[in-house]
């Protein structure tokens, strides 16, 4: 058995959700790591799209930002930023949106805008929306990759930057978040209530730990699964990937 960190388990679990040949709109950070890992393991034909306009990027190292030069160099096509949003994301032709989050709630609404106080006088000013609202709305489905903690997993987000699993009547093309991959396990929206439910735990993690890391009374699936641990191959490739990240440690 291999020693691995919780973050490594998270990246591996997220990467496994991507089927080969899928078209994936990738946010930077954890989502990008997971998507690039998938392309190097079970999904060599995964199509990576970054909001910088790079379609079919095949980066040889982990891009540090969504505008890393390696994305343009290796893409099938580089288009303008308006085009990537209008022609490629908006019509619903992307299979999976891969997003991170600063704050996330019971219904997988995502906040990356402000925490605490109110919008004009927040406790913490975060970067804002970027591409996330439309990625969440228009991709056929969304996977969220985020570390689980009571600060991040809150009853109600302070600001809805991107809409979660409760989206009836909003006219979206996409089904929204289908799973939230964390460093502890996997949460999925209940098909009826859209409430996030713990459906899998990573090896060695307890339900108690997951509950303690969640700011609401976390529902747990009856048939709770255990994530298979990272294989030696997955770990090797992931670590190699992380080591190549443009001169900056994660």
């Amino acid at each position, binding site marked *: 058995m291999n020693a691995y960190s919780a973050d490594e388990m998270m990246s591996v679990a997220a990467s496994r959700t991507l089927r080969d040949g899928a078209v994936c709109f990738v946010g930077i950070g954890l989502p990008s790591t997971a998507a690039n890992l998938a392309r190097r393991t079970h999904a060599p034909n995964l199509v990576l799209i970054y909001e910088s306009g790079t379609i079919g990027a095949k980066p040889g190292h982990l891009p540090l930002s969504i505008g890393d030069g390696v994305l343009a160099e290796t893409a099938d096509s580089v288009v303008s930023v308006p085009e990537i949003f209008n022609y490629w994301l908006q019509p619903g032709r992307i299979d999976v949106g891969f997003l991170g989050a600063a704050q996330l709630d019971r219904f997988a609404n995502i906040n990356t805008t402000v925490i605490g106080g109110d919008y004009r006088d927040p406790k913490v000013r975060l970067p804002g*929306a970027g591409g996330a609202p439309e990625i969440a709305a228009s991709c056929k489905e969304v996977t969220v990759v985020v570390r689980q903690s009571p600060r991040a997993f809150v009853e109600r987000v302070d600001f809805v930057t991107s809409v979660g699993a409760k989206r009836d009547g909003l006219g979206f093309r996409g089904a929204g978040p289908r799973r939230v991959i964390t460093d502890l396990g996997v949460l999925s929206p209940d098909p009826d209530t859209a409430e996030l439910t713990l459906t899998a735990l990573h090896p060695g993690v307890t339900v108690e730990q997951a509950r303690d890391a969640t700011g609401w009374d976390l529902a747990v699936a009856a048939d709770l699964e255990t994530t298979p641990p990272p294989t030696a191959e997955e770990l090797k490739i992931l670590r190699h990937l992380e080591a190549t990240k443009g001169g900056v440690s994660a």
Partner: protein
Amino acid sequence: MAELVSLHDAVAELVRDGDTVALEGFTHLIPFAAGHEIIRQKRRDLTLVRMTPDLVYDQLIGAGCARKLIFSWGGNPGVGSLHRFRDAVKDSWPVPLELEEHSHAGMANRYVAGASGLPFAVLRGYVGTDLVHQTETIKPITCPFTGEVLTAVPALNPDVAIVHAQQADRAGNVQLWGIVGVQKEAVLSARRSLVTVEEVVDRLEPRPGAVVLPSWVITRVAHVPGGAHPSYAHGYSVRDNEFYQKWDPIGRDREAFTRWLEDL
């Protein structure tokens, strides 16, 4: 016809107090040198427009050049937060900063409308988010054929757009390649424009994926090699990732920032 002038003269002529100014470049080709020249020339009360205000706008905001920011993602990519931006928003230092906040899709379409001579753009966006409650420049619009309700955003037409490119020829035609972002739209949407370039060449050799801006849609071109540092110019330089990390402690601290500013 774009005249080739010095960066100093271009900024002195084109950027005026109170202007709406867009410096664009999506991670790639960010016109840092032009931003620094605006700081040195002490422009004030600017409305700064940019999809991804990163270090260059942290610097302009910290220097007190801006009264308002129109944006969709404000962070230090791969590192963390913009502390001068945070300080201005939370504590009005050195001056208060008004925010007009959008998503990338919305900002991109606002430039498209501006470049197209239309007063607004239509998109599927913002629905269900709290942005619609905070930003007045997001409104519903109904399709006259299907009755479907979509979202409208107004055109951006900055007084000045500034971008950085790899090459200009001597007639002021400009070519840029790699990640091309929203630069064409920014230049075409603006009343005046400045392009800083890595190199002035006799002839622009056509390149795959290049955007060419003809001289007659550009006001001024300035030869500023390295003008995108610490961002990069595809084919000329690589991103100085270390600088982005080094900025974090500088931006975090008013005193450290003030020292940086004095040395600029």
